[in-house]
């Protein structure tokens, strides 16, 4: 974890309200592990007192890439950054994904920009597995070629049917599990909206498979100090709070109290 002044190398709007931001950030880029995130101070946005968290999508040499969706004033401010401008980053933060187990078959499940948290998992996995990407429409299915280039299979579902199978990504996953799955035990790496996390978690838990879920809780400090980002996890018979920014964002699905998550 460090404070780093990163330099904007390039800004690349991609499809439908998403952009890639390439940053020179040698300290963080060399340290980051899959599923970790950076906490970014949006320049000029004086009236916003919080940073914004983004998964590290790619890390190549001294360069970090984040992939972000334009949702509000912070991400609008990120779009307004200029080439050569300096951004203050804290990172790498959080407890990311473990390495896929060698004797399991790794399955990535992503909703929308959730795939950004999974690229490094795919890259560092000893086994090439399969990735399921879901979104509202074709616009929300991002960077499939990047995953394919790593030798992974990618399957797509969109709610409006504009790309891949029509419907939820979990239905696509269910089909695959039923019809195409090999004998290997699946191990899931999941990132996306909480409804999707919940759905994948319930499938995995029911069959005693391991699922690693990355939660997208609102954050304050990003380093474990403010207790904004907490969620309920099991603690023996009882529950306790875990910090998404510190103990997470990746949790073993078996540990989360899913019934408490909206």
């Amino acid at each position, binding site marked *: *974890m*460090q*404070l780093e002044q990163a330099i904007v190398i390039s800004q690349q709007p991609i499809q439908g309200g998403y952009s890639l931001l390439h940053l020179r950030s040698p300290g963080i880029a060399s340290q980051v592990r899959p599923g970790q995130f950076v906490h970014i*101070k949006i320049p000029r946005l*004086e*009236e*916003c*007192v*919080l*940073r914004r968290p983004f998964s590290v999508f790619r890390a190549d040499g001294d360069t970090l890439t984040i992939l972000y969706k334009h949702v509000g004033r912070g991400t609008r401010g990120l779009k307004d950054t200029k080439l050569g401008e300096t951004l*203050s980053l*804290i990172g790498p933060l959080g407890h990311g994904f473990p390495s896929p187990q060698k004797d399991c078959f790794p399955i990535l499940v992503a909703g929308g920009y959730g795939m950004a948290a999974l690229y490094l998992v795919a890259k560092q996995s000893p086994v090439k597995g399969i990735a399921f990407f879901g979104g509202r429409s074709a616009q929300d299915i991002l960077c499939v070629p990047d995953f394919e280039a790593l030798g992974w299979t990618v399957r797509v579902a969109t709610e409006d049917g504009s790309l891949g199978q029509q419907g939820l990504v979990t239905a696509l996953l269910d089909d695959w599990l039923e019809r195409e799955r090999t004998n290997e035990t699946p191990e899931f790496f999941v990132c996306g909206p909480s409804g999707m996390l919940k759905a994948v978690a319930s499938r995995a838990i029911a069959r005693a498979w391991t699922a690693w879920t990355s939660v997208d*809780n*609102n954050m*304050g*400090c*990003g*380093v*474990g*100090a*403010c*207790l*904004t980002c*907490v*969620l309920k996890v099991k603690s023996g018979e009882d529950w*306790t*709070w875990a910090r998404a920014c*510190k103990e997470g964002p990746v949790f073993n699905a078996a540990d989360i109290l899913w019934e408490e998550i909206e």
Partner: protein
Amino acid sequence: MTPNLSTNIGGIQMKNPVMTASGTFGYGPEYAELVDLNQLGAIVVKGICLNETKGNQTPRTAEAASGLLNAIGLPGPGVAGFVREYMPFLRQYDVPVIVNIWGKTIEEYVEVAARFDSIPGVAGLEVNVSCPNIKEGSALFGTDLKMFERVVKAIRNATRLPLMPKLAPNVADIAEYARCAEACGADAISLINSFPAMSVNIETRRPMLANKTGGLSGPAIKPIALRLVWLAAQAVKIPVVGMGGIASAEDALEFLMVGARAVAVGTASFIHPDTALKVVRGIEQFLAEKNLATVADWVGAFDP
């Protein structure tokens, strides 16, 4: 000549007048990788009560214009948990540790204070009185002068540690509370706590915070805080620790100028974890530029 930044807050000797504000810096370890804790004037830890508590449901914070709304609800490990989990870590550093304490009854405040009295490495107690009194009805300790007096007196009798009640800002006459704290034997006072406030969502028709209301902090409240600190500093002789929206050395110098003998950096640490250290360096530089030998030469330099 490097100016002398050291200051003494009611018996707590500090290298410089900049502390962390309770609840915005965890218990120390959270920021230790980013910030050299030894360079802080003091560390004020997140509020501790007798037993482990879970705090409020989520969402617990929401952004507002130039501010942050929070209703964390004081989760924490309790006295024993805190002492076990964090004191060994904190004792490694050469920095005073001020424990922020709270309770739901006067008895609980007293008990917490008494327990810390014998804990090595605790430099002083800050008393958060912005909590409702569970036992004696809904009155708040911090906004009812009689209750405030009772709780401060009772704690005073229970501890020899430097005692610093932290005033609630939402009172009509802050000087009354400042004088009361002094009369009850407090060694210092700190202010302001975050300001009672609320945000709502018109789409869901629900409050933004699970707790409905919360406390507003950050730059938005700085002008409110500055006035209250000024009024409090005029009312008492004991040292005043000022806070509320401090994000730069200039901000801190404003609080010191109106009479605070130390300041605390809160919400600003979330955006720039090294704010407190930058504030220290900025104060030092400012004093040097103005040819002031000590920070005490600047405290109260206001010409109203």
